C-alpha cells in the first residue's frame, strides 16, 4: 500500500562527500498521493521548487516522483531542540553526517547541535564549522547551539553576540551537560540574549546535590546502593531560573524536564506570565527507574529515569502544554563507554530514530495527543523556540515542503545495530514500537524514501540556502 513509483528505492546511499557542489539547484517534483495531513482527510500534495505547490485530490504531474501515501500521516518535518552530534572532537561517537542520517530517518528536517563538543562550541568559529558541516551533508538543517560560558566552565560568558551574528545565526544557548549553576551568570546570560532574540536552554542540575550521582534518588537507589540524583536538584534550579527569567523578562528554556515537581514549578511560572518553555525526552516519557535494577548502562541517562508518577506527570504536562516540546537529547556513545560497569558508563541514549515512535506509543495511542498535537510539540513549537525559519509550518500550498510521512500502523523492533546513528546505546533496544517514518522531505527533496535514506541525498542540498 505504501511505496514509491518510478524510482529505485532501497538502494544504498552515496556515502562520500564528493557530490559536486551546485547540483542541488533543481529538484524533481514529488507528488504525494492520498496522504492525511495531521491525520485529517486524505489529499494529494505536489512538492515543487521547495514548497508545497498544490494540494487537492486526483492530481497528476508529469515527470514527478509519485509517492503512494495511502494510510500515511503527513506532519511538518520534525525539529529537535536537543541533539548531540559530537563533532568536532568525538567523531568515534557520531559525526554531523551520521547524526544527520539518523535525524532524517527519524523524520527530522532540523536539529539543534549541542555545544558540548571538543572544542566547545563557544565561539563564532566553531558554530560556523558545525553549521557548514551540516550544510555540506544536507540531510537536515543543522542549527548549532552556542555555549553560554567559555568552555562550559560556568565562569565567564562566551561571546554570545558573535555567535548570534555569525553565519550560523545562533539563537539557542546552552551549557547542556552542565548546569549554569551561578545565579548571577545565569541572570546575565538571560539578559544579554534579549539583544538578539535568543533563548537560554538550561540543563537544570544543582551540582553539589548531584556529585557522582548515578540514578534517581528514592527507594530503588537505596536498595541498589547507587548514588542518588534527587528530584530536588532539578527542581531547585528550575525554581530559581523561572524567578530570574521573570525578573529580567527573558526567555528561559528548560531542557529535559524529568520530575513531577518540575512540572508544577513550570506550570506556576507560566501562570504568572514568565516566558518559560520546556522540553521532555522520549525516554523520560516511556521509561522508569525500575530499568536500573538490571544495572545495564543503556539505562543510564542524565537526568536519570524517574518514578512512574513522574512519567505520568510529564506525559500529562506534554498533553496540556505545560511542557511545550519533545526533544530527543540524542546522546550517542561508542560501545566501550556503555559496555562496562554502571558507575563507569557514560550517560545518555540515542533518540533521533525512535522519538516519533515513542511519542506515538505514549501520547497518541493513549489518546493524550492527536497528530496535530504531535506536530505542534515536535515541529511547530520547537521551530518557534529555536527561531528556525521555514520549519514547523502548516501543510498548505505555498509553505516550505519540509515534511515527514509516517505509517502509524507499522510496528518495528529496535535493533541497535540496525540504526543509522553510530551510537550503540539505545535505551529502547529490543522494544517493539509503533509507527515508522516512510519518507522525509527537506524543501521538497526526499531525504528518506521507503524508510531508507534517499539515493544521492547526502550532499545534494549544497547549493541551497535556507
Amino acid at each position, binding site marked *: 500500500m505504501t511505496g514509491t513509483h518510478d524510482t529505485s528505492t532501497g538502494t544504498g546511499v552515496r556515502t562520500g562527500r564528493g557530490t559536486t557542489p551546485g547540483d542541488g539547484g533543481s529538484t524533481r517534483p514529488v507528488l504525494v498521493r492520498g496522504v492525511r495531513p495531521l491525520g485529517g482527510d486524505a489529499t494529494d500534495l505536489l512538492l515543487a521548487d521547495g514548497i508545497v505547490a498544490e494540494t487537492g485530490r486526483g492530481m497528476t504531474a508529469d515527470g514527478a516522483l509519485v509517492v503512494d501515501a495511502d494510510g500515511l500521516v503527513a506532519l511538518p518535518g520534525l525539529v529537535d531542540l536537543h541533539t548531540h552530534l559530537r563533532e568536532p572532537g568525538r567523531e568515534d561517537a557520531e559525526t554531523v553526517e551520521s547524526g544527520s542520517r539518523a535525524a532524517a530517518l527519524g523524520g527530522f528536517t532540523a536539529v539543534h547541535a549541542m555545544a558540548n563538543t571538543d572544542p566547545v562550541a563557544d565561539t563564532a568559529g566553531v558554530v560556523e564549522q558545525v553549521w557548514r558541516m551540516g550544510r555540506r551533508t544536507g540531510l537536515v538543517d543543522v542549527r548549532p547551539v552556542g555555549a553560554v560560558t567559555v568552555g562550559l566552565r560556568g565562569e565567564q560568558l562566551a561571546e554570545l553576540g558573535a555567535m548570534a551574528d555569525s553565519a550560523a545565526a545562533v539563537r539557542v544557548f546552552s551549557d547542556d551537560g552542565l548546569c549554569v549553576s551561578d545565579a548571577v551568570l545565569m541572570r546575565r546570560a538571560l539578559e544579554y540574549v534579549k539583544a538578539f532574540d535568543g533563548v537560554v536552554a538550561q540543563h537544570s542540575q544543582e551540582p553539589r546535590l548531584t556529585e557522582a550521582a548515578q540514578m534517581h*534518588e528514592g527507594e530503588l537507589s537505596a536498595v541498589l546502593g547507587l548514588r542518588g540524583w534527587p528530584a530536588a536538584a532539578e527542581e531547585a534550579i528550575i525554581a530559581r531560573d523561572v524567578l530570574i527569567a521573570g525578573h529580567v523578562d527573558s526567555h528561559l528554556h528548560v531542557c529535559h524536564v524529568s520530575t513531577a515537581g518540575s512540572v508544577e514549578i513550570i506550570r506556576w511560572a507560566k501562570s504568572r506570565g514568565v516566558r518559560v518553555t520546556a522540553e521532555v525526552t522520549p525516554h523520560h516519557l516511556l521509561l522508569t527507574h525500575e530499568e536500573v535494577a538490571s544495572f545495564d548502562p543503556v539505562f543510564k541517562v542524565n537526568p536519570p529515569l524517574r518514578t512512574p508518577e513522574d512519567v505520568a506527570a510529564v506525559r500529562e504536562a506534554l498533553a496540556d502544554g505545560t511542557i511545550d516540546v519533545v526533544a530527543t537529547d540524542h546522546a550517542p556513545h561508542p560501545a566501550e563507554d556503555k559496555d562496562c560497569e554502571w*558507575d*563507569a558508563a557514560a550517560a545518555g541514549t540515542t533518540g533521533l530514530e525512535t522519538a516519533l515512535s515513542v511519542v506515538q506509543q505514549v501520547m497518541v495511542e493513549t489518546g493524550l495527543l492527536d497528530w496535530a498535537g504531535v506536530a505542534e510539540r515536535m515541529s511547530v513549537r520547537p521551530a518557534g523556540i529555536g527561531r528556525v525559519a521555514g520549519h514547523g509550518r502548516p501543510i498548505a500550498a505555498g509553505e516550505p515542503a519540509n515534511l515527514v510521512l509516517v505509517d502509524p500502523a507499522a510496528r518495528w523492533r529496535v535493533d541497535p545495530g540496525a540504526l543509522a546513528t553510530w551510537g550503540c546505546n539505545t535505551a529502547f533496544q529490543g522494544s517493539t514500537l509503533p509507527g515508522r517514518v516512510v519518507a522525509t522531505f527537506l524543501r521538497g527533496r526526499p531525504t528518506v524514501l521507503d524508510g531508507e535514506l534517499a539515493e544521492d541525498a547526502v550532499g545534494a542540498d549544497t547549493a541551497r540556502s535556507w
Partner: protein
Amino acid sequence: MRHLLSAADLGRDQAVQVLDVAEQMAATQQREIKKLPTLRGRTVVNLFFEDSTRTRISFEAAAKRLSADVINFTARGSSVSKGESLKDTALTLEAMGADAVVVRHHAPGAPHRLATAGWTRGSVVNAGDGTHEHPTQALLDAFTLRRHLVGGTVPGAATGADLAGQRVVIAGDVLHSRVARSNVLLLHTLGAHVVLVAPPTLLPVGVEAWPCATSYDLDAVLEGAFGEPDAVMMLRVQRERQNAAFFPSAREYSRRYGLDVRRLGMLPRHTIVMHPGPMNRGLEISAAAADSARSTIVEQVSNGVAVRMAVLYLLLSGRKDPATGPVVTGGRTGGADGATRKDRRR
C-alpha cells in the same frame, strides 16, 4: 544456585541450606586434615578491584580447603581511568577457564554485569560491590547469629532452623554499607526483626521501604523500644565522612552512636556484639565492647571461611539444590553485543 549476587537471591529454604552446609564445612575444619577433595580440578578466580585482604584470604582459604585451584587477580582502576576494563578482564578469565569468579568491585552492580553481560560462563559470587551488597558477609553473620541465639553455641545444634523472632540491631553508616543492605535482606528472609540505627544523614532516602525498622536513637533501641535486642551489630564509620557533613565530628558521632562502655552495660545478658570489621576502635565501638565476652567478632572471621566453602560447594559441585530449583537472578542480559558489530563505515 548459578550465581550469588544479592542476598535477595536466596529464599528462606535456600538460605537455611547454605547455613546447614556451612555447619558441615565448619565441622570438617575441626579435623586434623582440613582439606576436602570436593572441588578438585575446578578453578576459582578471586577478582579483586578493591583492596580487601580479609575477604580475599577468606575466599582463598575456602576454595583451597575444597581442593579448587585458586587464581588471585588483583586489578586496579576501572575502565574510565587507567587499566583494563571489567569486560576485558572477564574475557581473559573466561579464556583461562574460570569455573567461579569471586568479584570485589567498587562499583555497585559490577557482579551483575559480569553475570549477565555474556562475558563469562562461570558462576559469579559477589564479594562486595561498592555500596550495594555483600551477601557472603550477611550469610556469615546469619551463621553466627544462628549458632549463638538458636543453637546455644553448640556447633550444628541449630541445623534446619532459621532466625524467626530474633531481634538484631544494626547501627552505623547504613548509607554507605553493603553489609547493612545484605543483612537486612537476608535476616528478614530468615525471619529476624532488624532495626537500623543511624543519624538521619547516614540512612538512605527510601530506606522506609526496606523490610526493617529504623531509629535515630541508639539508647532508646538498646533500652528495648523495639523489644529486647538479641544482637547488636556495629558498622564501620569512616572518620572522613565528617568532611562531607554526614556528622559534625567523630567525637559527636561516638557520643551519640558508638557502643561505649555505658551502652555495653545496657545490653541484656544474652545479647551478642558483632562487627564486620575492620573496626574503628573508639569511634563506633569501644575496646571494652570489642573485646568483651559477648563479642563474636573474631568468631565471625572463622565462620566466614565455612560459609564461603558452603557457597562455593553449592555453586560448583553438581548443582545439589533444594527442591525449589536453581536461583534465578534478577539481572537482564546486556544487549550491547549487536551494537559492537555496528558498521562504522563513513
